């Protein structure tokens, strides 16, 4: 298949569908309501504001793509854990501010927690939602123990990653995924996600592929944790958990099937951007947080319904 722009667009439409339409609509509404906020000069901080949610959604996707109930609800707490370690232990207690120590340390933590989740789900074979619920509780508890109350500040270079350099971590994230997509590993992951038994009989090492997916999710969540740290410029023990469910919602909104094997990280990030833009519209209207929450839930439900309906229509045409 040749990859003309039209093909790419078609593919994007097939994978993300309604989320893409919503993105355009919300972008236009935002531009009309709040032009100053969306000016090119403000893009740095705007992207920085959206980055943690995008990161969390992208991080949640690989294990979901792996199928058979694959899910990682510890993504949010892992972001909070990285936030607490980087600021409280590394920056304030140990006095380390060099990005060449902090970034590898954060990635290593992410990989380690991802490996633990992977081992629990693929080797011990505990159901993913239960295993990661366990790590969710452990990480939340440990974070609160090492960091009982919010504390600051963050190193200047890290704060710049939510300002003028805010696109950098996102580019790193997508570059990493772009590379993975070019490896045979990606095809194996998608094959397992759609039918792990068939993939197994075809000689794919199902256990290893799923394990690696959890490590990828862990590393991506660590990057999201760094983006979160950059955004708040401090450490807060209670901020991470909120990202778990909303990132899974973003993933679903972006057309990634929670049954696995269908969708991609671009869709997941479109879903996340949708949610971010929606928040932005509603705050521009100055509505109370209660209305915000109702609209949040309503858009989520309506969006997944429309996606499902569109999918059915598409399937109907194919048959």
């Amino acid at each position: 298949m040749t990859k003309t722009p039209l093909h790419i667009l078609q593919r994007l439409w097939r994978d993300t569908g309604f989320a893409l339409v919503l993105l355009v609509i919300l972008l236009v509404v935002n531009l009309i309501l709040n032009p100053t906020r969306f000016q090119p000069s403000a893009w740095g901080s705007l992207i920085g504001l959206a980055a943690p949610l995008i990161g969390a959604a992208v991080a949640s996707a690989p294990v979901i793509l792996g199928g058979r109930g694959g899910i990682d609800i510890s993504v949010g707490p892992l972001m909070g854990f990285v936030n607490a370690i980087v600021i409280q232990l590394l920056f304030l207690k140990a006095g380390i501010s060099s990005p060449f120590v902090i970034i590898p340390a954060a990635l290593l933590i992410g990989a380690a927690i991802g490996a633990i989740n992977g081992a629990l789900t693929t080797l011990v074979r505990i159901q993913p939602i239960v295993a990661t619920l366990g790590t969710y509780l452990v990480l939340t508890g440990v974070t609160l123990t090492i960091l009982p109350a919010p504390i600051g500040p963050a190193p200047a270079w890290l704060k710049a990653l939510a300002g003028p350099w805010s696109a950098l971590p996102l580019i790193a994230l997508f570059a990493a995924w772009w590379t993975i997509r070019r490896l045979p590993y990606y095809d194996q992951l998608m094959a397992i996600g759609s039918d792990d038994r068939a993939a197994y009989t075809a000689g794919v090492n199902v256990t290893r592929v799923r394990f690696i997916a959890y490590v990828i999710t862990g590393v991506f969540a660590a990057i999201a944790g760094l983006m979160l740290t950059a955004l708040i410029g401090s450490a807060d023990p209670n901020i991470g958990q909120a990202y778990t469910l909303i990132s899974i919602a973003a993933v679903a909104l972006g057309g990634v099937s929670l049954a696995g094997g269908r969708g991609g990280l671009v869709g997941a990030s479109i879903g996340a951007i949708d949610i971010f833009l929606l928040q932005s519209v509603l705050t521009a209207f100055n509505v109370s947080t209660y209305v915000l929450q109702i609209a949040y839930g309503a858009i989520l439900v309506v969006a997944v319904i429309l996606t499902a309906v569109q999918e059915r229509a598409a399937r109907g045409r194919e048959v």
Partner: protein
Amino acid sequence: MAIVETRTGERPGTGFALRIRSSLAGTNGRILMAFLIAGVLHLVGTLVIPGYSSPFAIRALLVIAALLAVASIGQTLVVILGGIDLSIPFIIGFANVVAAQLYGDKWNFALVCLFVIVVAMLIGALNGYISRRLDIHPLIVTLGIGMIMQGSVLLWTAGFPSGSAPPYVSAFVSIGGSAGPLPFPWVVPALVVLAALIVVVLARTPYGRRLYALGSNPGAASLALIDPVRMWMLTFSLSAMFAAVTGILLLGFTGSAYGDVGQPYLFQTIAAVVVGGAALVGGRGSYLGTIAGVLVLTEINTLLIGLGFQPAAVQASLGAVIILLVSIYGREKHVSMTI
């Protein structure tokens, strides 16, 4: 239960160790194991903490466990069906706040309960309908609907709910209460009766058989003339109903309305169901197992708090213990065993 038994048979083998292993992997083995662990935890608590088995402590434990057990009924049914219900904490909060508010507005309390339960059941039916009819993962649907509910309730009360429960509801769940000659409040014997009823419904009625059949094989069930959409609507509305009942009971327990009162129940109900031996892929699980899971969770919580752990440390240990327990007896089959 026959369906359950046949599904859990693992690789055939001889030898005592293998037999033990396979019986542990069976549904009844898992339930037995969970009850055993709850008993061991209680024994440890009694030995280590003075007053752990005092009448008051046991009463408190039973009441807290009973409330979690009521909230977990719905999650059990939904999980057997192969779904998950994240709207339970939001519906608990909804029932809690709305019941208090309406009772404060001088409504008859029976009418209040009826209203709250009917609204909850309609919402539950909507959850089930959207999830099954459009094939959208219930995780997303129940989360979205739950968020709408929570926002609406907050909007209605402007964030400051008022009102309380009538005294007899408080007496029904009060730790100091008594049920006639029995030394605990009515909620405990009521739960025992309810549990027996649910076990019978699951094992002996067409509804129960359809639930297991649909959970273990969604494709084949419709060939057996089971209407999946109807079953999902019914089961999710039952789940919402028991969540609403929990919300009303919690109103009596805490004395005042609080919109977030249900939040701890989000993960606790799932944990209880899983520790009790149900598989989140559907077709497996039982309410007796959930009761065992509820007892294990409540024992761990009480034990850790009794040992002087901080709330954060209690949470971390709870997570570790859930993983440990499920890794002992809740392991899944390897993919090569599913072919």
